[in-house]
């Protein structure tokens, strides 16, 4: 397959093989060395199948991200307690975050460690998704931690976050994508917008530490959350999020769109607020929709998007990861890859129809 003239990238996660999920549950410790072979098999298989879809950029499917896209970097820290905030999903279930018990705040692992494992298997560029500083900022408890101020925590958090991005860039990640799903959630929790603004502020503090060229390799992903075919903030109007989102000093934005009820309205908002030098990758397949989109359907969505968004600033992506939480089996691996294949083929079709700039 030739190079696409409209860039297309995945978000990140692919459902883990059931055997891996079962073995992790059986061992009780996701980092048990006895699981290494299974992890390797899962990663190798994921990359092979990812490449088979024709996707020009792939991920490792986050096969080793435990337990989820949000807490993977702090999972297992001894200075945390498991009783942090709950993230409520529309389906009724919640996911709980860890809470920092004492300072100093340090990552348990950086995401570039996933690249170390995956890149030897890959034949096409790989991107790496990481969690945003704003999401992790919610680990600091309401009551100040004695001897470890909130300011110290923020400093440590920014440094760790910056370190993670730099390490990924240094390892050759095609893009480093900051998962910012809490943006829409922030509006849901604080309709005044202050919470969202503070998130934008914090993330921009981190992004300001990178050069413009580096920021062209950094992107921000937002979606209404996706877990077990359910969302946490789909009811929040994009009109409240997107103007602030594009204030982030990133070069790329990955915006869930396929699952939106009024895509035209969202596309118009994007067109209004997208800045020069920024590229928006709109979601053209919806992981929470069990139906597999056809390439033609994807193509039609892109052509429609291109009516509003400058084709030179347009890219395509999945609405969300296919399994942001490692134990989510609501979507099969087969379905995930078929949706990705539809995205790739549909994007190529659209590129032939509307053209675009090389990625």
């Amino acid at each position, binding site marked *: 397959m030739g190079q696409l003239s409209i860039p297309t990238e995945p978000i990140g996660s692919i459902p883990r093989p059931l055997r891996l999920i079962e073995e992790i549950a059986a061992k009780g410790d996701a980092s048990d060395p006895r699981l290494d072979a299974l992890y390797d098999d899962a990663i190798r298989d994921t990359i092979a199948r990812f490449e088979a879809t024709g996707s020009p950029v792939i991920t490792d499917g986050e096969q080793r991200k435990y337990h989820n896209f949000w807490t993977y970097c702090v999972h297992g820290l001894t200075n945390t307690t498991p009783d942090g*905030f*709950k993230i*409520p999903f529309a389906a009724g279930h919640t996911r709980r975050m860890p809470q920092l018990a004492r300072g100093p705040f340090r990552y348990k692992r950086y995401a570039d460690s996933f690249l170390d494992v995956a890149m030897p298997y890959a034949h096409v560029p790989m991107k790496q998704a990481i969690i945003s500083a704003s999401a992790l*900022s*919610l680990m*600091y*408890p*309401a009551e100040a931690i004695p001897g470890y*101020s*909130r*300011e110290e*925590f*923020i*400093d440590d958090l*920014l440094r760790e976050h910056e370190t993670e991005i730099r390490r990924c860039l240094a390892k050759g990640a095609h893009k480093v994508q900051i998962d910012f799903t809490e943006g829409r959630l*922030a509006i849901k*929790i*604080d309709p005044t917008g*202050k*919470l969202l*603004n*503070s*998130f934008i*502020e*914090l993330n921009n*503090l981190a992004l*300001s530490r990178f050069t413009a060229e580096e920021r062209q390799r950094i992107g921000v992903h937002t979606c209404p959350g996706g877990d077990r075919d359910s969302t946490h903030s789909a009811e929040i109007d994009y009109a409240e999020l997107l103007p602030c989102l594009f204030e982030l000093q990133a070069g790329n934005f990955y915006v869930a769109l396929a699952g939106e009820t009024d895509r035209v309205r969202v596309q118009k908002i994007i067109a209004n607020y997208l800045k020069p030098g920024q590229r928006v990758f709109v979601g053209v397949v919806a992981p929470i929709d069990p139906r597999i989109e056809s390439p033609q359907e994807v193509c039609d969505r892109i052509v429609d998007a291109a009516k509003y968004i400058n084709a030179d600033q347009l890219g395509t992506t999945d609405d969300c990861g296919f399994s942001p939480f490692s134990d989510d089996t609501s979507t099969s691996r087969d379905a995930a890859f078929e949706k990705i294949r539809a995205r790739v083929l549909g994007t190529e079709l659209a590129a032939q129809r509307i053209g675009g700039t090389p990625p």
Partner: protein
Amino acid sequence: MNADDEEELLRSVALQNASAILFARKRAEQDLVEAKERAERLAAELRAAVRIAQLGADVAKALTGIEPMADLLRTCVEAIVRHVDAALARIWTVTSDGDVLELRASAGLYTHLNGPHARVPVGAFKIGRIAEERAPHLTNDVQHDPRVSDKAWAVREGLTGFAGYPLLVQDRLVGVVAMFSRAALTPESLDALASVADIVALGIERRRADALRADTELRKSSILEAAMDCIIAIDSDGCITEFNPAAEQQLQYKREDVLGKEMAALIIPPAHRERHREGMKRYIATGQGVVLGRRIEISALRADGSEFPVELSIMPMTVGGSLAFTGYLRDITDRRTAEAERAELLAREQMAQASLATTLKSIGDAVISTDQNAVVTFMNPVAEALTGWSLQDALGRPLREVFRIVDDRTRKEVESPADQVLRDGAVVGLASHTVLLSRDGRTIPIDDSGAPIRDEQGTPTGVVLVFRDVTQQKAAADRKEFLTEATPALASVLDVRWTLSRLAQLAVPKLADWCAVDMLADDGVRIEQVAVAHVDPTKIAWAESVRQKYPVAPDAKWGTPNVIRTGQSEIHPDVPDELLAASAVDAEHLRILRELHVSSAMTVPLLVRGRVLGAITLIFTDSGRHHTNDDREFAEEFARRAAIAVDNARLYESEQSARRNADVANRAKDDFLATVSHELRTPLNAMLGWTRMLRTGVLAPEKHNRALETIERNAVTQAQLIEDLLDVSRIISGKLLLDVQSVDLARIVEHAIDALRLASEAKKIALVTRVSDDATPIMGDPHRLQQVVWNLLSNAIKFTPESGHIELTVERVGATLKVAVTDSGRGIAADFLPHVFERFRQADGATTRSYGGLGLGLAISRHIVELHGGSIAVHSEGEGRGATFTVLLPISPSQRADGTASRAMTDGSAHLFDPRPELQGLRVLVVDDDVDARELIVAVLQRCGSIVNSAGSVPEALEKISLLRPDVLVSDIGMPGEDGYSLIRKVRALGPDAASIPAAALTAYARAEDRRKALDAGFMMHIPKPVEPAELVAVVANLTRFAVRR
């Protein structure tokens, strides 16, 4: 905590974080301001350093090029202005005499090269002093510098700094570089300028040396004058500076006419002229030239305006420090013409080759060509399809690898036709029975020819093979030929087994490697394998042993039984191991089946007139061939014809058998008639003879009683014979009727024994009778039953030798009464046992039969027994081992008194016999085994005066012939042991005397053929019995005519 509380707490934490974030942002902003200031300082330093570095780089780059001196120096001063912020920069070079500095480049405030500073004497002004002192002069106070002559100018232009450097190469002055600046010169600037000065000095020096060398070389070159090519030198303006004699000749210009004129306007055609000029400009500006250093082909103009093709190469050079070019032109008109002709030829050849290739690809036949080493050089798509080789794969391979052909019958590879063609140099065609083995294993009969490919000199350069798939034609022809040969071959034989054997042989190897013919047996159940043929005859016996060990089950669901049962063919194009496994009885059987290497199998029915006679099984083994549906249809046609042949053969055999049976019956009847004749004549002979002797009164009275007894006895015998014949006649006509009544079989047996006791006693035969007490009476015809018992008993006595024994038993066996007569007589041969009860059949039908009678007794007995609802059987262990005749008669509850039939006596009239003594003294030997007949003849002949001797057998006769030397021999033919034929042959062989004895055959065998046979044997006369005495005398008298008097 409920969800709302949770959200509130989350909001609280986030907002508390916000203040910390704000603090962090402020600190970041402060850090950013400081960082910016540091960065600006650093950037300024960097910019300065970069500019100075760039100055050096630009100057160095200019010096490495080949621009003219003026351009080089202009580049340098412009770089100084650009990178060192100079207001004015200039370079002077010193003249060759070293006295004057000439201004060569100026940038900044002034760019002109004329004016008061265009030529500065060394030592004059500040520039001349720098040259003179060979030391730099630097100042940041120009406006007060004593060396500056025009201070007002400096003030007016705001000039502050000045730097001037002598341009020295190893202390040798080549010029001066100087600059003015409006800002103070930094030490870095001065360092940069100093380094640039050194570089510029070197550049000037090198340019000068280059120009001097090029100028010298060009001018002094004798090649210029003697060159065959045009050599044209031009300067940087494109004007001609040199024009050699070759150029004059080819371009038709005079050298003096073109020097100084622009070359492009003279010799470059208008279409290319502007491009040439632009190319020169680009080269002068950038140093980049598309055509420089390369050979290009263009057109050139002659003085008369005509164009001609030239090959041009242009080399840049520096002449006198200035850029110049030398062009080399060569007229390539002839070469172009030759190339055009060659191109045309090539095009034609390519067109022809393309046409040929298209033709070869289009034709329906396969084509392969090779080189002289039989290596494949071409094959068309049809050849690719047939050989299974792609052209790409086949190219470069030996033909025998791509085009593998074998003999269809032997499967051995045959010589490559390419080798034949290359060896013989002539066209060859493949032998028949040649098949192509494709790369993918197919076997394809082909029809082809090979021919040598020759070059224009006739030398073979390769081979072209043309071939085509003739599978269908060959198959059709083979089948037609096969059927043409097979049909008459099958039809020509009328022996079923031989037909089937021929059938199997015909099928191999044409239709199979292995052919078996199985036929349905007469019982309609059993299947018998009747013929097998195999390409390897040694395997036939082995196959038979396997078949014996693993016989085919008649109810098998596939194979021969199924085909015979259904009349439908079976075909297995492939025989997978699963089929073998399903067919095998056990592991050993499976192993054997696998070893057969069966590749394909087919069974077709032998079907004729709606009946399945059997089946033909056709198997491919080591040849690896496979049956197709076409094969099946063909095999069915073959089988149909074979079935007709088998049917015909069977019908023929049936007809032959019937004919044989009829012949046997006829012969039996003939023999019977002969016997009847003999048996009737024999007693008649005695009766007539004795009767006539009595009537003529020639017989002595004491012999009358004997005569009458003999007559009576023979009459009774004849009456019995006649009665038997009448019985047979009744049986045949169905008129033999029973007078049924209660019969006591014991009494009948008793009567029979009484009747025959004397006969048995005469032969000293021990006759034992055992009648069981439970032998109850039965219902039957007592006369006929007595006839049966008498017949069995009399036969036993007849065939039992003297001192033998006979046992007759009567006993009850179930619901039957069994009568058994067992003797120790001559027994019965096994092959005659089935015919014992047939009419007209006697075990000894020859004239040498030892026992008289018509042989009708047993046939009559069987019929009588069967009329009683019983059965009769015989058992004998063989000849010489006696026999047992057993009669089973159903027991009847009613009883009747039995009666005994008396045999009728016949009476006949006698002819008169008048003996005459005309045979007086004639010695006659009479030979007859029958005493009555013998005595009668003896009596008749003696009555005529003959001296008569008699013999009862051939040996006795021979003995008496030797002793008595009779004059006449009269002999019976049918005698026990040796017959009359034997006697006469032996007599004739005794010697001259005996050979001449007149002899007459006196025999009851009275047919014409009997007469002929007797005469052939050596008798002179044949006298059928009964014979009148007078006739006998007359015959004997006639015989005397043949006698050799002694």
